[in-house]
């Protein structure tokens, strides 16, 4: 896939940027959540006790643009000193997975495709942003997103999501979440560079025996044409609440229109038949 900014009509756009979120070094500090809320003035959306480990943020939505997932797994883990390959006597240890989720800024973005007003648009950086002065709150983008990112702000009516700090990008700054991340779990940069970095990190982890490490959303051949924000995960995507094989819904749209066209013609034919049988009946 060509650069989505160029495909959207930008002449000579800057390099496409994004996030590489390496969850293997996430410590669950939620600095990204806080930095995002502060910089973007995202309103409070209540605090409930969920019992979901240390996650009361629950998931991405209109007022949560970074979400840190906490997963506690009781399973045999061989770590640290066992790296020499002599592992085997594993403790029944606690494995704690933490991951900071964010809008994926898809190459083929369903939210952008289905937006009827043009409120959602592709920026020159290849990211996807909502213009709040245009959005009329039709809500179509919300069920269109295969990741459950964008949502409606209840008292406001409009749809909101991560902008990848469009304002900061314009000023040559790093997005707030990446800047605040103390372990560099969230890495920001040109997408090509991030993909190289991610591939090297994956090799390193595989070399050290972390067979379950895998990249998620980095493949331009996947159902959304690759994500502008991709991840290194240590378990299956659905464990983190991510869809295992997302596909942009509009990929099937040409076929949908064809089927609807045939159906509309069928309705016309049915109506013609409804009158024709009476004509024939009368003649007989």
């Amino acid at each position, binding site marked *: 896939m060509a650069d989505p900014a160029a495909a959207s009509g930008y002449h000579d756009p800057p390099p496409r940027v994004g996030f590489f979120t390496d969850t293997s070094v996430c410590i669950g500090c939620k600095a990204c959540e806080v930095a995002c809320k502060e910089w973007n003035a995202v309103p409070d959306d209540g605090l409930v006790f969920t019992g979901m480990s240390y996650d009361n943020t629950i998931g991405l939505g209109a007022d949560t643009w970074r979400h840190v997932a906490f997963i506690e797994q009781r399973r045999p883990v061989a770590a640290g000193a066992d790296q020499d390959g002599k592992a085997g006597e594993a403790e029944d240890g606690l*494995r704690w997975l933490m991951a900071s989720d964010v809008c994926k800024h898809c190459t083929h973005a369903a939210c952008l495709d289905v937006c009827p007003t043009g409120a959602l648009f592709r920026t020159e950086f290849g990211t996807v942003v909502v213009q709040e002065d245009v959005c009329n709150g039709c809500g179509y983008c919300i069920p269109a997103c295969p990741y459950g990112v964008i949502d409606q702000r209840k008292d406001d009516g409009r749809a909101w999501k991560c902008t990848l700090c469009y304002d900061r990008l314009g000023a040559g700054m790093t997005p707030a979440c990446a800047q605040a991340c103390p372990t560099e779990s969230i890495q920001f940069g040109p997408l090509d560079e991030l993909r190289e970095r991610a591939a090297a990190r994956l090799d390193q982890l595989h070399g050290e025996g972390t067979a379950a490490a895998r990249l998620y959303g980095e493949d331009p051949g996947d159902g959304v044409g690759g994500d502008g924000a991709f991840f290194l995960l240590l378990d299956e995507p659905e464990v983190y609440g991510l869809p295992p094989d997302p596909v942009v819904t509009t990929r099937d749209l040409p076929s*949908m229109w064809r089927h609807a066209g045939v*159906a509309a013609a069928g309705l016309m034919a049915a109506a013609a038949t409804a009158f024709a049988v009476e004509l024939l009946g009368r003649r007989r």
Partner: protein
Amino acid sequence: MSAADVTRQGLRGTRPGREARPGREARRRGRRGEQAMVPPAEFTSYYGRPVINSPVWRSPDIPGYLFLGGLAGGSSLLGAGAQATGRPALARTAKAGALGAISLSLAALAHDLGRPARFLNMLRMFKVTSPMSVGSWLLAGYAPAVGVAAASALTGRVPRLGAVASAAAALAGPAVAAYTGVLFSDTAVPAWHEGFREMPFVFVGSAATAAGGLGLLAAPAGQNAPARNLALLGVAAEAAAFELMTRRMGMVAEPYTTGRSGAYLQAGRVLSAAGAAGAVIGRRNRAVAALSGAALLGASAATRWAVFHAGLASAADPKYTVVPQRQRRDGGGAAPARAN
């Protein structure tokens, strides 16, 4: 090694150092190596939370819009046909019904917006990738035609303009009835998207049922025969398309048969069977025709509410997102056919 617990005696176990690696699993108990011939009964999710965000569309606005849009589209066909074949009472009924239905449906659409005052932003651009944009432009052309056709039929004035408007409404009407199938299918909602091939046929069937039902309810017995025929064709098409759709969907069809959606579906089946039987039996009886017409209208509405609630239920349960995607990704034989 990997666990450190704070106890009354202090820290037990050791914390990994700063250079900690995430560690490797000592034994894999996963299903990796096994050949899954049937969909896994278990699936993992993040605390059972849904993967996708649920549609914020509300009932009765949106299922009501589907119903009324279908009723209007089908009625425009019935109205134009009635005019062409010399059934003025049926024509008046159908055209007035179309106008009432499309007016109400536009109100429902505007009411459901988060920012109703920005309704006209729908016409800010035209995007073929957005079924809602296509639908907005369709309605912008269709609704005025319906208005002129109805006004002319009811007042008897400007008959020529009325005939042109009737013809235009009859051309656009089927598109209005069918596009809503695309509107719903073009989402990540499993019970809507997986039915994208059949959904427009379910919806035009439901539209024919509703329009025929209105004709039976309101037109005199001497002129309602085409309405009855259209309703019967609609009931048959809707049932067949629905059956095909849910069969092809596999496990994603579950929400259609359970819970709220299942109740609406059941009600719709009873109503459409009763309405179809009444329409056939009560050919000459005005009261029976009217009753069966009302039942058919109810059946059409029940289908729309069933589809609406099935979508919400499939969005709320991560199972319907995760399991089919796992099957597709892992190349299981049961993967749903991809679009061409």
